[in-house]
């Protein structure tokens, strides 16, 4: 067991492209860290540098108290699970799992015991004599896991291990990997581009963008207190509603003006973000999570809070809740940070977003209770939970907090 440390790690490829910029990270012993970010953000490169599959251009990576920069992969005492599992097609499941142990000249008896143990842990016992190609995707994934855990290394490295599975299996395997990791208490670095996966699995999540670390925090903190627009828009699904708003002083308090509507900023919010007052008379990016919006017509208590009115464009009934896409006037935030973070949006939607920005119209997604009966073209009043509003500087993209 060991912790893993990145200290000012740079990676420049031979062709001059820099993939990782001065990355510093600390993963505690036994911790499950998820590296997340859109493709090309350098997360896989970072992982491969830990594995020893990429050379480290600058800085140091250490595992435990050893600096591993110059060690070959085999000397780093790590195990890695690859996106395509990298199972040896010419070997049986048992031999695949035993491969690393045999390379290390482990006594045969120990090998057998360990393979059996791993197979039991993963439910692979009946398949030990099969070839990888005779297995289902989920089973292959388990074999890949088995190959990693059987060696009981200091660190597990997992590179998008679930991306080749269908959605249902992915959820199941997520839980399983989590369970195994908790059981083995092995320090784990897990790379994914899927923020849901990141949020559900990691003890800590490190969000990366263009080779730079954006924020590393617990999933809750990331969600509730993103450091910048990129993290804010990247984390959460549906993603945070972001709209330009002008801060105005009114009656000793602050309000956020969105075109023709406005929201009063609660005093406690303002006091948590002392710098916000300094933005009076200026525009900021206002962030509202979908669950902070509710169909006012079905709220019985406190129905007189802050409201936003808009026209329903589209609804998605999910059974337990209803996602309403509501259009209101106001200029959406379309900085690069947001566009990159909004990985779930397709190109057509991004174009649409830009178009709407021109027309000063923005679409909010509200996570309404299933009772809501709004339908497209309805005009809806949304009750806003203003206690969790987020504010970002439009130019720097950073969250507006202390002065």
């Amino acid at each position: 067991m060991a912790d893993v440390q990145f200290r000012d790690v740079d990676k420049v490829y031979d062709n001059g492209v820099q993939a990782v910029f001065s990355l510093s990270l600390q993963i505690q012993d036994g911790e499950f860290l998820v590296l997340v970010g859109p493709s090309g953000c350098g997360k896989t490169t970072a992982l491969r540098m830990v594995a020893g599959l990429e050379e480290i251009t600058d800085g140091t990576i250490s595992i435990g108290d050893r600096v591993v920069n110059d060690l070959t992969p085999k000397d780093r005492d790590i195990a890695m699970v690859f996106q395509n599992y990298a199972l040896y097609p010419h070997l049986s499941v048992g031999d695949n799992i035993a491969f690393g142990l045999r390379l290390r000249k482990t006594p045969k008896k120990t090998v057998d015991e360990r393979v059996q143990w791993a197979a039991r842990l993963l439910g692979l016992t009946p398949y030990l004599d099969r070839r990888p190609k005779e297995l289902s995707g989920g089973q292959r994934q388990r074999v890949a896991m088995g190959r990693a855990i059987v060696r009981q290394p200091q660190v597990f490295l997992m590179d998008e291990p679930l991306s080749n599975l269908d959605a249902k299996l992915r959820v199941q395997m997520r839980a399983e990997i989590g369970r195994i990791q908790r059981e083995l208490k092995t320090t784990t670095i897990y790379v994914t581009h899927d923020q849901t996966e990141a949020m559900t699995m990691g003890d800590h999540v490190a969000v990366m963008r263009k080779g730079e670390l954006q924020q590393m925090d617990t999933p809750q903190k990331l969600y509730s207190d993103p450091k910048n627009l990129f993290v804010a828009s990247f984390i959460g699904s549906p993603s945070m509603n972001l709209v330009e708003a002008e801060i105005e002083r009114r009656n000793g308090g602050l309000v956020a003006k969105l075109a023709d509507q406005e929201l009063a900023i609660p005093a406690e919010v303002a006091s948590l973000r002392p710098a916000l007052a300094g933005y009076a008379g200026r525009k900021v990016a206002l962030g509202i999570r979908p669950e902070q919006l509710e169909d006012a017509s079905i709220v019985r208590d406190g129905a007189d809070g802050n409201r936003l009115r808009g026209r329903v464009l589209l609804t998605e009934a999910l059974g337990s809740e209803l996602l309403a896409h509501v259009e209101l006037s106001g200029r959406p935030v379309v900085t690069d940070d947001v566009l990159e973070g909004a990985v779930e949006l397709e190109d057509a939607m991004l174009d649409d977003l830009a178009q709407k920005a021109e027309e000063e119209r923005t679409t909010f997604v509200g996570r309404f209770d299933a009772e809501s009966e709004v339908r497209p073209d309805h005009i809806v009043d949304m009750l806003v939970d203003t206690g969790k509003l987020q504010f970002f500087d439009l130019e720097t993209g950073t969250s507006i907090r202390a002065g």
Partner: protein
Amino acid sequence: MSTSERVAEVTVPAVAERRQPKRRRFAQNWWRHAVALIALVFALFPVAYVLSAAFNGDNSLSGSSLIPRHVTFDNFRTLFVGQKNTTGHATFQNAHYASWFANSMIVAGATALLTVLLGALAAYAFSRFRFRGRRLGMLTLLLIHMFPQLLAVLAIYLIVLNVGDIFHFIGLNTLSALVLVYLGGAMGVNTWLMKGFFDTIPSELDESARVDGATPAQVFWGVVLPLAAPVLAVIALISFVATLNEFVIASVVLETQHKFTLPVGLWQYIDQKYSEHWGPFAAGVLIAAVPAALLFAFLQRYIVQGLTQGAVKG
């Protein structure tokens, strides 16, 4: 690799077709059979002729019939036991066929194995490592082999001659020298073919093995080579047959009857005595074709796989 799985996999899609009535299938496929038969006639016509000449009592190149009038094994006997000289003079033509055959097997076998090995090593480097001069190296390999070898034979002779002064066991008239010379061509088109195949083997397999604790050599031997078995089989076969065919260099390096390979031996056999030896010559050609045919049959599974499947997926 286990046979049963491969076979199972190949036959599964055919099940639906199987259920069709035979006649209907034939009606659909008759043209395929027709094309195949025409191809067979074209391909096998000369072979049938050799076959007939080998068993024919009348020894002559032209003019003999396609169906032998009296079938005899005399030609085969002549190859191995020799021919009685009718005039009672000393027998000039000793029966060396067995040595030629053995020599050819040794040379072709060794060359094929080592060619595969050397070619695979190089192909692996070209496929997996990124180093300076890699692109240039590959192009150079291909270009260098386009130089007409015919005239370089003189130089090869001189090299073997000189090397033989120091190392007698790789000098002129040794099989080992011949193998070494052939290995000069080990890194050619072969390397390109193998590199192409290696490229289809996911590099994650290598990386995974390295993380599991394998040295680069172990990755190569334990992971990549077994997976490349199909292309290795193809190259081995091509190299085996090419070596078996090679005449010019062999005739320059080898000097004595008992060191000859099949082409050199059979060539001078037919060259010396013209058509008198046509029958035994045909018999010799027939036997010479057996190893390559067997090898092909034996490796066919890999070959079809290596060339149709292409990529190996985990």
